């Protein structure tokens, strides 16, 4: 399994695992490999110092300490395991019952476990242990019950998380009975959580067992336990000060190993989660590589079916090399952004951007078109200096107004919020939910512009007017969740342009919005560009959005620029087969086609083509 492999790459985890394996072996055969009888007293050799015969010396009854230590492992560990097992079964079972039962039942179960948490561990265990005839099992049941709330809470939280996912809803819509849903979808997901919880609970439980046996609860004197040895050795501390060291070290090392293991397990799980999240974006690259060609060829035939060959416009179409229109906008104006042969790689080896060159002249509006995995977002993130962890620029140049942004001392402080402004896809995620929108803008203004409180409020009102937010005062008092996506995107735009930047980057800025709102935001972008003489770099997967707003287009595919040119040229004479299919897609498959078909058409061309 992946988790195990990752775990074995960490020295601390390996050390901990080795130690635990030793403990496990001793638990099984500790009494068998003991060099001396751990129980028989030897009055002739009481409290001896370590020697060749007794490596760790002898105790107050002359018994070999090493042998007692080895033999004592079993009871100490098994008792702790017993408590963990009780806690695991009780807590997990109750959590599953609670999640899927009616509200009153759930309430009762939750309160019961809450009340367990109020009980003091050791006192309760001592009391139960004593009440039930000084038995270690009784004490362990008590410990198990008290540790159960940990499992209950952890499991309940992860089950609740899973239960509200769409795949569980999908399964229930398919009529899959509840126990089956739990077995297939829910339980496998809580196994890692259970592992982590069990490791740390076992550590805690070992300490409790040591404490109880130290106090003499549940175990009668001759039986060796780590805690019992400690308490016996303690009485003779003045004579043999090093005798308690061995049992103490055994307890400490085992507990520490479990703690380290739990920690590493948690780390690995966190990494796996992050990788899963990252996977969906980087893996997009592989996906575009693997999945797209078939789709493309589908559409190529679809267009061909559509009676006219798209290639006729460009008779000598170049092979799938970079199709470049004679770019007229070079040289004549100063470039604000200059990217040369940029290469970005993930630590995992994936090439996300493979030699992209791009130029944004001052005052222009340039668009980057590409699907997920095309490298467009990574390119922009590099330009903004916000590449995700584990992703690095491995070659090429990245310049903004002449400054080298690949240099380690790139002046990001000066660029962010001042010279480069940016808006992104989902505006809601860029706000802190518990602060009013106005407070959040004022904070930015005071930081980047060095304004005072009153000045910031005034500047904010002006900005709101600029981005067309009416009733600015009311909007400023509202919290992010009270505003619509379109309004939030306007607020973000206000923040982005507040520093009077040279460059405005809009990364899928309208993708999450309704079409009508998208149209408004696009209009606003165009207006802002004119009023503030901004240079705009727009990123989108939607050709039509860019066609509206940009003068010049770059088409990204699998980390490369496959075509660039003035928007009209790209739209009307696409050179690269990929661009051609994108444009054709829109005309055959887009709203234009619906409009063109009008009321006359009975069967839509795509429907006809699709069913062929």
């Amino acid at each position, binding site marked *: 399994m992946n988790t195990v492999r990752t775990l074995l790459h960490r020295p601390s985890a390996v050390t901990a695992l080795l130690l635990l394996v030793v403990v496990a072996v001793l638990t099984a055969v500790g009494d068998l490999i003991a060099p001396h009888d751990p129980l028989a007293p030897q009055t002739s050799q009481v409290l001896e110092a370590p020697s060749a015969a007794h490596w760790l010396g002898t105790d107050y009854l002359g018994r070999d300490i090493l042998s007692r230590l080895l033999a004592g492992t079993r009871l100490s560990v098994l008792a702790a395991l017993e408590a963990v097992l009780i806690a695991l079964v009780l807590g997990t079972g109750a959590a599953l019952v609670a999640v899927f039962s009616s509200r009153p039942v759930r309430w009762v179960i939750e309160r019961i476990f809450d009340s367990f948490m109020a009980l003091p561990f050791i006192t309760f265990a001592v009391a139960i242990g004593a009440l039930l005839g000084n038995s270690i099992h009784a004490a362990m049941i008590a410990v198990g019950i008290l540790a159960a709330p940990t499992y209950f809470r952890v499991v309940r939280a992860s089950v609740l998380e899973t239960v509200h996912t769409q795949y569980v809803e999908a399964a229930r819509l398919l009529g899959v009975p509840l126990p089956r849903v739990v077995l297939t979808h829910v339980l496998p*997901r809580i196994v890692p959580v259970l592992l982590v919880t069990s490791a740390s609970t076992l550590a805690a439980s070992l300490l409790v067992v040591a404490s109880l046996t130290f106090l003499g609860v549940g175990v009668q004197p001759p039986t060796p336990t780590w805690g019992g040895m400690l308490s016996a050795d303690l009485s003779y501390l003045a004579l043999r000060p090093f005798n308690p060291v061995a049992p103490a070290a055994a307890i400490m090392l085992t507990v520490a190993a479990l703690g380290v293991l739990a920690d590493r397990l948690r780390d690995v799980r966190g990494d796996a989660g992050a990788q899963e999240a990252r996977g969906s974006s980087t893996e997009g690259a592989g996906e575009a590589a693997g999945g797209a060609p078939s789709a493309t060829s589908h559409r190529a035939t679809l267009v061909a079916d559509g009676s006219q060959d798209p290639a006729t416009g460009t008779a000598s179409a170049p092979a799938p090399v970079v199709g470049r229109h004679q770019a007229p906008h070079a040289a004549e104006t100063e470039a604000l952004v200059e990217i040369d042969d940029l290469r970005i790689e993930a630590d995992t080896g994936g090439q996300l951007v493979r030699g992209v060159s791009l130029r944004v002249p001052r005052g222009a509006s340039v668009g980057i078109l590409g699907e997920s995995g095309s490298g467009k977002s990574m390119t922009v993130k590099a330009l903004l200096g916000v590449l995700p962890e584990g992703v690095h620029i491995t070659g090429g140049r990245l310049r903004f107004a002449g400054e080298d942004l690949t240099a380690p001392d790139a002046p990001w402080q000066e660029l962010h919020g001042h010279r480069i402004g940016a808006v992104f896809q989902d505006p809601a995620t860029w706000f802190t939910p518990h602060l009013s929108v106005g407070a959040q803008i004022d904070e930015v203004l005071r930081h980047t512009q060095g304004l005072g409180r009153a000045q910031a409020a005034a500047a904010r009102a002006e900005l709101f007017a600029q981005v067309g937010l009416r009733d600015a005062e009311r909007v400023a008092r509202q919290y992010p969740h009270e505003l619509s996506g379109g309004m939030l995107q306007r607020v973000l735009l206000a923040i982005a342009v507040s520093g009077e930047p040279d460059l405005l980057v809009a990364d899928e800025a309208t993708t999450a919005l309704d079409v009508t709102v998208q149209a408004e935001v696009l209009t606003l972008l165009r207006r802002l560009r004119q009023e503030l003489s901004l240079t705009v770099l727009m990123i989108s997967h939607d050709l039509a959005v860019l066609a509206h707003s940009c003068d010049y287009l770059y088409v990204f595919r699998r980390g490369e620029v496959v075509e660039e040119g003035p928007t009209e040229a790209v739209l009307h004479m696409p050179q690269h087969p990929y661009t051609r299919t994108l444009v054709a897609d829109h005309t055959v*498959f*887009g709203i234009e086609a619906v409009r063109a078909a009008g009321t006359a058409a009975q069967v839509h061309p795509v429907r006809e083509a*699709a069913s062929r």
Partner: protein
Amino acid sequence: MTSTLTPTRDRAVRVGPGRAAQRPALTVRDLAVRYGTREVLHGIDLDVAPGEVVGLIGESGSGKTSLARTVLGLVAAAAGTIEVDGHLVTGFTRAQWRAFRRAGHAQYVFQDPLSSLDGRLTARASVLEGARQTFPAAAVRHAEQALETVGLDRALWESRPAELSGGQRQRVAIARALAVDPALLVCDEPVSALDASSRIEVVRTLTAAARAGTGILLISHDLSSLGAIADRVLVLHGGAIVESGPAAEVLGAPRHPYTRRLIDAIPTLDRPAPESRHRARESGPALAPTPLLHP
């Protein structure tokens, strides 16, 4: 393929020779839905015939998703009736819903297949899960037929969602729904989370399902793909249907001002901005209108 999707059922819920009886897939009359005191839907009438694709458009907050969820019993109706595949589902008890779902009369396709598919299960396992409920005796056959219907390459059947493209994932989700041979398929924004190149895959798949006789209620704000496959289109605005008719009419010549606004807001490849046109003319190469943009 009709034969593969209309097998003899091993339960008595649906009688007769499969869907040949041509019962309406969905009939909704005067439906109202309330969340607390807020009325999100009112006076909804809606019909989906077998093999028909009915498109439902409207902005977020217009009640589209509430309507879909009500039809499937995930949200309770406040008033009105819903009949799915000849069964009056309004007023169903929980047990009745369970039996109804196991019988596979209606299925749902979510927006994002990455969240609607269990990442741990292979494509085949996901599809089998539902088929096992409806056709305990012939689950494997039904699952494999559904995977073939959606055209997923056999080599990908044992792949997990993370190893598939967006379009492939959504086709697995559709296959999972089709494997129980539903009379009604409710698709909530099935292409919105997908790239342009994946959309056509999904559109083709849905078209194939409709041809096989499944009635489809297709909710989408992607009017272009909706226009491509819907027979009829309904426009939802403020919790009520404000316009309905054949897809080409509603999308091509919208009558209601809201519909018109919605359709006009869709960006097209026709460039409106005159200032950039000027720049392009300057730029040299004569831009002959190509057949691409003016079919």
